[in-house]
């Protein structure tokens, strides 16, 4: 075991896969000599050279399109989009081209590619550099979507994404890059579509993703110690494929479900989860499902406003306590 930051674990995951497979190539803006604007790709350029780690112009459509064309002709590209908000300028490539090509061509074309991006709030960057857009990606058939919450997970899920034969979007969370955690030594590869029960409990289930996972865990600890409420915290890790089995099994045990979502309210991933549990776990429920989300607004920049906007530990504790009465 080594202690790595989340950003170091990103680079470690990419390096592990590039060292293993010559077909893995990496492209994006400022990812090479500069090591990425979040310093999540430091060392890759020095180790693998400019042929495999390629800086691009500020051309998001060209970056994603090039990854797609390379993937359909034998490579396994990893493309970086600096901020997930910039998906807006290459959404055609992601949603119309990459997601649909395998289906439309009746399976003639496979697209084994990874799009990595920095997602989420907490940096006081304002509404165009702070969004959580995992629900955009989840809404498009043909995209796999993961959002790891720990250094160990981000390394091993990037590895799984690179090895997966389909397009995978990896949402890294900006506010997690500096977080440290134990990462197993040697090669690590995870499984897409598996949730993890991080904290067992019996009174309610809290499903969370990315930055909301450490907050849910902290809230669970406080709910236990301050209010005697035992929460089961599930890190979904992957939205597509979605591990509904782990989720439904947990709700069967606890009879209550909370989602903690950073995405804005409407059509957030929790809405889909709530609908699945309502359809398939309804008779196990003792109370209405409750979604804790960012309100349906663009994100404000000022620290005081931003902190009050996205779900906090206090908000989770308060909501659970109030609704469990």
């Amino acid at each position, binding site marked *: 075991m080594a202690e790595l930051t989340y950003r170091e674990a990103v680079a470690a995951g990419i390096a592990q896969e590039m060292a293993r497979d010559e077909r893995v*190539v990496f492209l994006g803006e400022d990812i090479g000599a500069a090591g990425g604007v979040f310093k999540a790709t430091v060392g890759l350029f020095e180790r693998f050279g400019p042929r495999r780690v390629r800086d691009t112009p500020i051309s998001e*459509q060209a970056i994603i*399109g090039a*990854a797609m064309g390379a993937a359909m002709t034998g*490579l396994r590209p990893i493309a970086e989009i600096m901020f997930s908000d910039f998906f807006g300028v290459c959404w055609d*490539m992601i949603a119309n*081209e990459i997601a649909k090509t395998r289906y439309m061509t*009746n399976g003639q074309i496979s697209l084994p590619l990874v799009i990595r991006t920095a997602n989420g709030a907490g940096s006081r960057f304002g509404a165009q550099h702070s969004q959580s857009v995992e629900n955009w990606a989840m809404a498009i*058939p043909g995209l796999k979507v993961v959002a790891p919450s720990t250094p160990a997970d981000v390394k091993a899920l990037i590895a799984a994404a690179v090895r997966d034969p389909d397009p995978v979007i990896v949402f890294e969370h900006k506010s997690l890059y500096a977080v440290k955690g134990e990462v197993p030594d040697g090669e690590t590869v995870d499984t897409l579509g598996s949730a993890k029960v991080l904290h067992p409990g019996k009174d309610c289930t809290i499903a969370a993703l990315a930055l909301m996972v450490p907050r849910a865990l902290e809230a669970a600890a406080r709910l236990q110690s301050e209010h005697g409420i035992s929460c089961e915290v599930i890190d979904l890790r992957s939205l597509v494929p979605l591990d509904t089995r782990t989720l439904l099994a947990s709700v069967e045990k606890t009879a209550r479900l909370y989602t903690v979502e950073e995405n804005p309210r409407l059509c957030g991933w929790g809405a889909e989860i709530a609908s699945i549990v309502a359809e398939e776990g309804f008779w196990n429920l003792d109370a209405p499902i409750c979604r804790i989300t960012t309100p349906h607004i663009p994100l404000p920049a000022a620290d005081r406003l931003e902190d009050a906007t996205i779900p906090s530990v206090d908000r989770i504790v308060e909501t659970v306590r109030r609704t469990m009465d």
Partner: protein
Amino acid sequence: MNLRERRKRRDAASAYSTPQEATENDSMTALDQPRPLSAADDDIGREKRLRMFRLLLELRLTEKRAYDLFLQNLVKGTSHLSLGQEAVAAGFALGMRRDDYTFCTYRGHAHTLARGAPMSGVLGELMGRECGVTAGKGGSMHLTSVEHGAMGSYAIVGAHLPVACGAAWSAQYRGTDQVTACFFGDGTTNIGAFHEALNFAAVWKLPVVFVCENNLYMEYTPIGTVTAVEHPAADRAAAYGLARTIVDGNDADAVFRTASAAFARARAGQGPALIEAMTYRHSGHSRADPAQYRPKGELDEWLKRDPIKIYRERLVSLGFPEVDLGAIEADTERRVNEATEAAKASPPPPLTLIEKDLWADGGVAWRN
């Protein structure tokens, strides 16, 4: 505006704004007077010329058949024909190797056929039949035949230019000398993806040849009324450090020569090319378009320069026996008839296809 007028305007403009003089590839002069045939015409050779003639006919007759099949309500949905533009598809395809890649648009029937996709697969796709090249899942605008190097038809204007860059990058990275050809219309030069892709390809020196088929109209709007320069592709080439190349897109030999030169440079690692082929579509933009917006007489002028008529006359004047040409025509007609019958006989796709092949495991599951 006919070609003669366009050329005059361009020449006038070039007095103060030509970034790079027209290259030898610029065969626009050939449009104005029939060029006397000379020894230089032997560069293409008898065998290739006959293949070209056969290919031109295949494209023409298959698309005419597609049109007839609409009228019989056997082709559903939309359809964008390349009638009149066949020399671009044929001239480029003949310059390509089996393992080269083609990317094209919704107006892609000719490009897909030209790479060798079966006529029955193309007609079947338009008719929504199981024998279609994508078994009815893609439809008219998404013809794809990877085994023939036809890497897809893309229906969002401009989207496939970056994708073509990726295929070219892959060939460059793998150290093969495969080239990628990417076809699009004049209207496509005004979307961002065009400019991103051109710059990207130039900076990375990718083996990709971008081909703008300038048929003078986007959908219904004349391209000149929405574009800041006279030649939507060629006049922008300098911005990406590329040569200004215009070719008569109705002269299959001229297209073939231009294509071969660009492919040779790309294979040799000398980077991308941007070629503007002047041409014209004989029918409307799509099946729904009667093309009323075209000035009276414009179509007639272009019909005089029908690429198939031009090619046949050239072959005759080069001494190809009339009976040989007639035999090719009859044979092609017969093959299109056979393909039509095969497509008609093919059943509609099975409903099991709906939930198939979203993922590489063949399925569509998003949960456990």
